[in-house]
């Protein structure tokens, strides 16, 4: 009975495309037959702040918000924003970290230090369930740094047995035509970079 609903927390920095990634998750999991709910948790509407979205799927989903401590999957588009949510995770949660660093204001001003060894910290608590990718490098290689969210989504798609065609079709439905090729490439590269055999 427990854990009939799967909880995915996506976190990142405003402007990184966290919300778009979760929109795509919604469509994909709806298509394969699940009830889905998604909530966006962020402050004021401007850029640059931290953004998290709660995505949940299952037979019947009530709350749009994940209960604190019940996250099954963490997708972090930025390391500090991953670490900020580490306490939200279940003991056996799976963690996907995009090893990108964006300094918050206190760090750019030199009054605080950016946390060190974020990936190591995750490995300490989620040994064997922590995966990290260099999504920004891949996105730039694909032609646009902004595709980092889609690269990460591609990597995340490995956790589920859902056909690539379904992912890709839903992905394209959320994007304007002129960036289709770029994002398909970004998704495939992301999917390749992580193998979970």
């Amino acid at each position, binding site marked *: 009975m427990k854990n009939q609903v799967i909880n995915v927390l996506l976190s990142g*920095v*405003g402007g990184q495309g966290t919300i778009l990634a979760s*929109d795509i998750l*919604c*469509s994909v999991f*709806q298509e394969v037959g699940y*009830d*889905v*709910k*998604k*909530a*966006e948790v*962020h*402050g*004021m*509407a*401007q*850029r*640059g*702040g*931290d953004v998290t979205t709660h995505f949940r799927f299952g037979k019947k*989903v*009530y*709350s*749009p*918000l*994940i*209960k*604190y*401590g019940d996250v099954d999957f963490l997708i972090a588009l930025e390391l*500090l*924003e991953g*670490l*900020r*949510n*580490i*306490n*939200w995770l279940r003991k056996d949660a799976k963690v996907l970290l995009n090893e990108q660093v964006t*300094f*918050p*204001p*206190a*760090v*750019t*001003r*030199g009054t*605080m*230090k*950016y*946390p060190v060894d974020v990936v190591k*910290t995750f490995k300490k*608590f989620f040994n064997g369930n922590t995966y990290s990718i260099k999504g920004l490098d891949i996105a730039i290689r694909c032609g646009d*740094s902004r595709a980092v969210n889609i690269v990460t989504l591609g990597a995340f798609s490995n956790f589920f047995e859902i056909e690539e065609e379904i992912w890709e079709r839903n992905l394209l439905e959320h994007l304007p035509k002129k960036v289709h090729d770029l994002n398909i490439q970004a998704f495939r590269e992301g999917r390749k970079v992580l193998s979970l055999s």
Partner: protein
Amino acid sequence: MEKVLQGNYAIARGAWEAGVKVACAYPGTPSSEIIYAIGTLYKNDIQAEWSVNEKVSLEVASGASIVGARAMASMKHVGLNVASDPLMTLSYTGVKGGLLVVVADDPYSHSSQNEQDSRHWARFGKMPMLEPSDSQECKEFTKLSFDLSEQFDTPVLLRSETRVSHSFSIVKLGERKESTITLSFNKKETPKYTMVPIYVRQRRPLVEERMKKLEVFADAFQYNVMEINDPNIGVITSGVCYCYTKEVFPEYSYLKLGMVWPLPRKLIADFYKKVKKVIIVEELDPFLETEIRAMGYKVFHGKDVIPSIFELSPEIIEKALKGKKYKAPKERINTEELPKRPPNMCSGCSHRPLFYALKKLDLFVFGDIGCYTLAAAPPLNAIHTTICMGAGVGQAFGAAKVLGKEGLGKACAVLGDSTFLHAGVTPLMDVVYNKGNSTTIILDNWATGMTGLQEHPGTGFTITGEPTNKIDYEALARALGVEHVRKVDPYNIKETMEVIKEEVERDAPSVIVMVNGPCMLHRREKRKFEHPFYTIDTDKCRGCQMCLEIGCPAISWKDVSGEEAMTKDGHKRKGVVAINRLQCPGCGVCQQICKFEAIIPGKEEGGVQ
């Protein structure tokens, strides 16, 4: 067909399916997407508009209703304060075509100046209020509102909130059905729509009768739902609170209210017969609890354990109801110690140099509602009040009144272009009429920026992108009687400071309009800067940190030691700054601040650093 929709898009869809003809709003988080969606997806069937403010929204919608069309106005909670004047009397006149007012609350003030529980408006104004819990209900309740409105001759309130408006879930889509009411003017209905005392007294008893009828209706309303499971504990709740509570306590019995005003007395009595103890779970005020206690019932738990401030969540409800039995998840690290990431003005934003100028002039700045409230935060610290739309203009005048000549040169009011048009014109008229001397600075960034770059009467475009009249701020200010109207480019800090200094010291009302500073995220307009980006000449940077005072996200600090701790010409330094090429749009503000010529134009051929 089923589709995953955001709550606000589901409301828009519901309006379309209900045959709505007119939909109006002033943008306000978390409600803005409703009219945006209508103006984009359903513009062939519904005339959508960005109104100048919420009061106008409701008045335009009610005019459409009086001639027989289904119409709606949507707004955030504080928007309903502005629209409350027509609303309270529209309750008396009732409607011809269905009239819906959507109000979106913002518990925790994610993007607002206060928390308000809008359910009080329904009781205060004597109108029915529906409260959806997910996107499907957003759509259904919106559609239903128009039937209810016409059936009971009343405006209907639909209360959403951040977590409903901005959450996504699956919606079953339906088709549009046009209203069958013939559009016409009917002068015979003058007593219904003309609220002079003699007609008010005719309408007043009808309002009470209507509420009695609605109470009876509520008992059988299909979305006031009883779920009997465990007979020991029953929860009375509504909206997203139902989702949270059901998530944590699926075994309890529930009375889920789709209509939160008026309350279904018989149904509540029935529920009390079926369960032993009743818990009331509601966000913000004890609205249901107060009413249910007043009916004479015992409430086992309500606001004694459920917080009455901020947003609720599954764990808050679990913790409140389990008390000592609640087991908190294990804390792995102390995340409070991590550097926070608050929102910041974009790099290149035209507000940044202006607020830097205001800070250097050491002015007391009466602020307003918009992105620029971010200037209240360090390092700018250059906004000293924020109350509501337009408030700063009147407040600056009030302060000037008591300080007289003493106050000259010490303060000013700032507000955005959209905010000025929303509620800043009337206080400016007041300043001139009552012989004030305060200075009003209009931060024109060519859009209602913070809520997502909506059009307004100063942009020259309508919601559908059609060209329209464009307000000339200078001509408007002059028409109000302001003789001293100046225009300044905020990216020129020296000139900006000179102009502001002259005007705040002047013993006469003045207006300064910031020009040529479109929002950095503007889709249609881009400010052209002289250089594509700036970079640091590390031979010259002395690490004085002056450029960090503007809080630009593209500029960062790096400690240095050894050889690096010295400039080329032999000055000691503790660190140097760097400019992130990817984030710098080349606005040149930092370059004007640097005293050591260490910030220099970057060259494209250098490639990405």
